[in-house]
C-alpha cells in the first residue's frame, strides 16, 4: 500500500496524478472517512463528486485540492433526492431542512472541478438521479466509494423497527 497523505501534506498541493483520469463518487463525503477518502483521491488528481445529506458537502468539496487549469462542471441545481440522513451518525436523523433538495456546484469556490450533491440516499430513485446528473455534468464515474452509513445502538430487545429498517 502507498503511504497515506497527512493533513499537512494535503495543504501543499496535489501529491500525484495517479487518478487524474478518474471520476470518483464518494457518499457520506461531508465528514469522517468519506471526507478523508475524497481528499485522498483529490490529492492524486481525481475529480470528486461528493454526496451527502448535509449542506456542508458544498464547502467540503470546495476545500479539496483542485485540478489546475480546469474549470468545473457547469453550475446548476436540480433535484437529486430529499434532504435527509446519509452521514455516519448516531442521530435519529429526520431532517427538518428544506424539502427542495438540490445540487450544489462547488466549482465556483475553487475551480477544482469537484461537485457536491445534497441528497437523501434512502429516497427511491435518488441513486439513479445522482448518477444521471454526474454523467451529464462531469462524466462517467470510474470509482464509487460507498461511505455513507449510520450506527444506531441499542440492545437487540429494545431496537425499534424504524432503527432497523
Amino acid at each position, binding site marked *: 500500500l502507498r503511504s497515506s497523505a497527512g493533513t499537512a501534506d494535503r495543504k501543499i498541493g496535489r501529491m500525484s496524478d495517479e487518478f487524474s483520469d478518474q471520476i*470518483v463518487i464518494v457518499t457520506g463525503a461531508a465528514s469522517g472517512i468519506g471526507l478523508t477518502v475524497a481528499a485522498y483521491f483529490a490529492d492524486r488528481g481525481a475529480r470528486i463528486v461528493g454526496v451527502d445529506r448535509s449542506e456542508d458537502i458544498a464547502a467540503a468539496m470546495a476545500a479539496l485540492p483542485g485540478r489546475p487549469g480546469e474549470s468545473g462542471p457547469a453550475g446548476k441545481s436540480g433535484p437529486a433526492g430529499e434532504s435527509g440522513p446519509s452521514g455516519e451518525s448516531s442521530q435519529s436523523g429526520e431532517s427538518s431542512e428544506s424539502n427542495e433538495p438540490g445540487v450544489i456546484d462547488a466549482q465556483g469556490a475553487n475551480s477544482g472541478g469537484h461537485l457536491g450533491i445534497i441528497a437523501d440516499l434512502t429516497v427511491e430513485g435518488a441513486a439513479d438521479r445522482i448518477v444521471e446528473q454526474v454523467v451529464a455534468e462531469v462524466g462517467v464515474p470510474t470509482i464509487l466509494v460507498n461511505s455513507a452509513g449510520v450506527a444506531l445502538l441499542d440492545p437487540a430487545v429494545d431496537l425499534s423497527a424504524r432503527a432497523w429498517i
Partner: protein
Amino acid sequence: MTLDINLSASFFMAQAVGRQMLAAGYGRIISLASQASVIGLADHVAYCASKAGLLGMTRVLSLEWARSGVTVNCVSPTVVETPLGKLAWAGAKGDAMREQIPVGRFAQPEEIAALIGYLAGRDAAMITGENILIDGGYASV
C-alpha cells in the same frame, strides 16, 4: 434506517454506477463495511446485519461484473478515529476496546483511504468480491 442507509443505499448507488461502468468496460466499487461485518458486537444488531449484508451484495456484484472490468470490494475497519468515532468511543469504553485490538490502537481515517486507494487502482484488477479487514488484528483473535 440502518438497513436503508448502510445496505440499500449502497446497493442502489452500485447499481446505478455499475450500469455506466459496465458500458464503459471499467470500474471500481468499494463499500465501507466494518469489522462488524464478520463478528458480533453488543448493541450493534442492525449495524452488524447491515454490514454483513454488504458482503453478500459485494460477492454477487463481483461475480456478475468481473468480466466487464468492474471490481467490487469491501473494506472493514475497526474503530476509526474520525471526530464522531472519537466521541462514540471516548473514555473507559474506548480504552477497553483498544485493549482488545492486537496493535493497541484505533485506525486513522488516512489508513482507510490508502487501502481504498489501492483497491481503486489499476494494480488491484485481480482483487474482487473481497472484504479486506483493516482492524489491527481485532477480528482475527
